[in-house]
């Protein structure tokens, strides 16, 4: 299964970006292969609807779970449409967030 993390860097030790639509990059971690890819957020400078664009991007990348700080109602709606589960993490790095997710310590964002 693939998990998308919002980050400002390109490695597991990179800081989390608490924003979703305006995050610099998405780190897509594959739990079965235990490896990851990093994709740029092309919607980062969108005039509006960056969250919607970001949802499109991570769904296209095959993510079934999103770990971020928070996301807005439109992105939430788009992600729910695609069946993506959204978790909020206050951890500082992607690796910490991943660890907490795998340990079941993150809370799912259930409403926008």
């Amino acid at each position, binding site marked *: 299964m693939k998990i998308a993390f919002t980050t400002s860097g390109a490695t597991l030790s990179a800081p989390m970006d608490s924003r979703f639509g305006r995050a610099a990059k998405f780190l897509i971690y594959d739990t079965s292969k235990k490896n990851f890819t990093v994709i740029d957020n092309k*919607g980062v400078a*969108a*005039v*509006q*609807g*960056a969250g*919607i*664009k970001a*949802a*499109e991007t991570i*769904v296209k990348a095959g993510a079934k779970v999103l770990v971020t700080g928070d996301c807005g109602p*439109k992105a939430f*709606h*788009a992600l729910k*449409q*695609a069946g993506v589960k959204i978790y909020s993490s206050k951890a500082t790095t992607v690796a910490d967030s991943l660890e907490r997710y795998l340990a079941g310590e993150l809370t799912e964002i259930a409403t926008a």
Partner: protein
Amino acid sequence: MMIAVASGKGGTGKTTVAVNLAYVIGQNVRLLDCDVEEPNAHIFIKGSPKTERIITVPVPEIDKSRCDGCGKCADLCAFNAIACIGNTPLVFPEMCHGCGGCTRVCPQKAIHEIEKRIGVIEVSQAAHITLIQGQLDVGVALAPPLIRAVKEQATKDGLIILDAPPGTSCPVVATLRDADFALLVTEPTPFGLHDLKLAVDVVRQMKIPFGVVINRATIGDDRVRVYCRTESIPVLAEIPDDRRIAEAISNGSLIVEALPEYRAIFQELSRKVMNNEAVA
């Protein structure tokens, strides 16, 4: 002739200048309140209502039975009003600016447009002033299409005064477009000067002749005047800081009616604007 009253900073006195200018201009004039997020010219121009019109923008509706999920509509939309999640298009009507591009690029002809209400335009008449006012519905974020609709209510001929929204973003540009002249209202404070410079950048880029009005001119410092001198921008009027002006405005009165001694300032401003005098 179309005269726009604009400013970078909010609360400098755009509406004050616009309504008093309209009053003293002494001929039939259409005053367009383009600050559609919170129009307030009607507080000063108390006319008898004539008409109210509902304004809509066309937004896409997708026929799911025809859509094959190619995503061309989502790729085209600069405002991200359509997302293609997997193979399912998702429309966010509140994001749509109504350009119609999605209906054109859809190879399946699966998109047609429906009208979505964004606000109203009210027209009223007070003596020689026809007030045309746009009012955006609460929760709607599409000021420019409503501003364009307000401007379409005024035919090109005759005299038109536009009361612009504050700032320098899309709603201001939509208001300023096609204006023959811009009056930039500012105050002699560092904040006023900072935002005046932004407004000057906009009107220069749009190649609109302009001049400055300094409101509350007896406060603050001299930096706005020095800036105008250095940039060869004419200061067309100075309105002093007077508590009685604030009181008149609080009561919904025109300065030129409540305090006749200030009438000359607006008459002189009107003369300068109409004669296209000394503009930058």
